[in-house]
């Protein structure tokens, strides 16, 4: 008898399908991760809560650095003290794998923390996925955003722990 997919609903399967390589981006958003989407979301949600943060705060910080760096028009500029940010974009838009309207610009943000020397790179799609869905991409994906790395490089301080779930339903 077929294994019941009780842990992941039909729509989750469809969303995970859209994250496969070649559907929206060349390498997809799952990398080598073999876990179900629900499991990936739960694990990252737990990681974010352990850091004392929320998805909204992380995304807001990403946007803050992006907006400050946008003035560079594709060149690196120093913003907010000790961050070097470069915002660049290419033509075209990408849909989000989750089912809702709107397309994300293909915009890349490189943030280097000049104090620690560490660097992260994220896209507008990344920021949206984190903010609206708590999705940080699968392990091994070229655009995987590790919550701990983001918190460290972007210097996000822990919040007062939020008693509710971090993932918007």
């Amino acid at each position, binding site marked *: *008898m*077929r294994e*019941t*997919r*009780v*842990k992941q*609903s*039909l729509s989750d399967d469809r969303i995970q399908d859209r994250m496969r390589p070649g559907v929206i981006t060349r390498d997809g958003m799952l990398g080598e991760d073999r876990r179900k989407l629900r499991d990936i979301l739960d694990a990252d949600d737990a990681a974010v809560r352990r850091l004392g943060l929320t998805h909204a705060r992380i995304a807001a910080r990403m946007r803050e650095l992006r907006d400050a760096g946008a003035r560079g028009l594709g060149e690196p500029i120093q913003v907010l003290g000790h961050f070097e940010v470069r915002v660049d974009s290419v033509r075209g838009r990408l849909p989000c794998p989750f089912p809702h309207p709107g397309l994300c610009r293909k915009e890349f943000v490189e943030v280097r923390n000049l104090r620690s020397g560490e660097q992260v790179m994220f896209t507008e799609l990344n920021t949206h996925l984190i903010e609206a869905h708590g999705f940080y991409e699968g392990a091994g994906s070229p655009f995987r955003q590790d919550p701990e790395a983001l918190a460290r490089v972007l210097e996000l301080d822990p919040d007062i722990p939020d008693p509710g779930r971090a993932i918007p339903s």
Partner: protein
Amino acid sequence: MQQLGFFAILFSAVFTNNILLTNYLGMCSFLGCSREVKTSLGLGTAVFFVTAATSVLNWLVYVYILVPLDLVYLRFIVFIVVIAAFVQLVEMIIERVSETLYLALGIFLPLITVNCAILGASLFMVIRNYTFWQAAGYGLGAGLGWALAILAMAGIRQRLVQRSRVPRGLEGPGIALIIAGTMALAFMGFNGMVSLN
């Protein structure tokens, strides 16, 4: 058993000998597709239709083809083939009538073919040597009972998600089985009202 009329069998198949809660047949899609009342209603109707129709058809095939030609041992294959054909028919009808439902059911629609409850209904009717009307009643009742059970389950699960906090370890199959067990216990209260054997 010969004394039981159409309505008696219908009633008992729905309540006292519910094919899902008493005989534990058809659990797969019951657990997998019972999160929302809307989808469950659709699936329940589909299963009801298939069970009712195939019970009658299978009875006809059994009594008029298999028995006279002494091919009773083929009943498993033949029943499954009839069920499979009917599920294809139902799929076409659903796709034509309501694309929304068709998409919502997804893989569970063709999975009705291997729903044990449907084959079970046909086999029970053979084991218990039902007449035509008894078989019809039983098919209708089993399908109705299954649909009722999945609707009740969906209603409970939907409410549960809104009102209470299920412990993380029990989310999904855990709580679903607990609910199913509790429902089965409740239906046991009907025991003895009507005996199908």
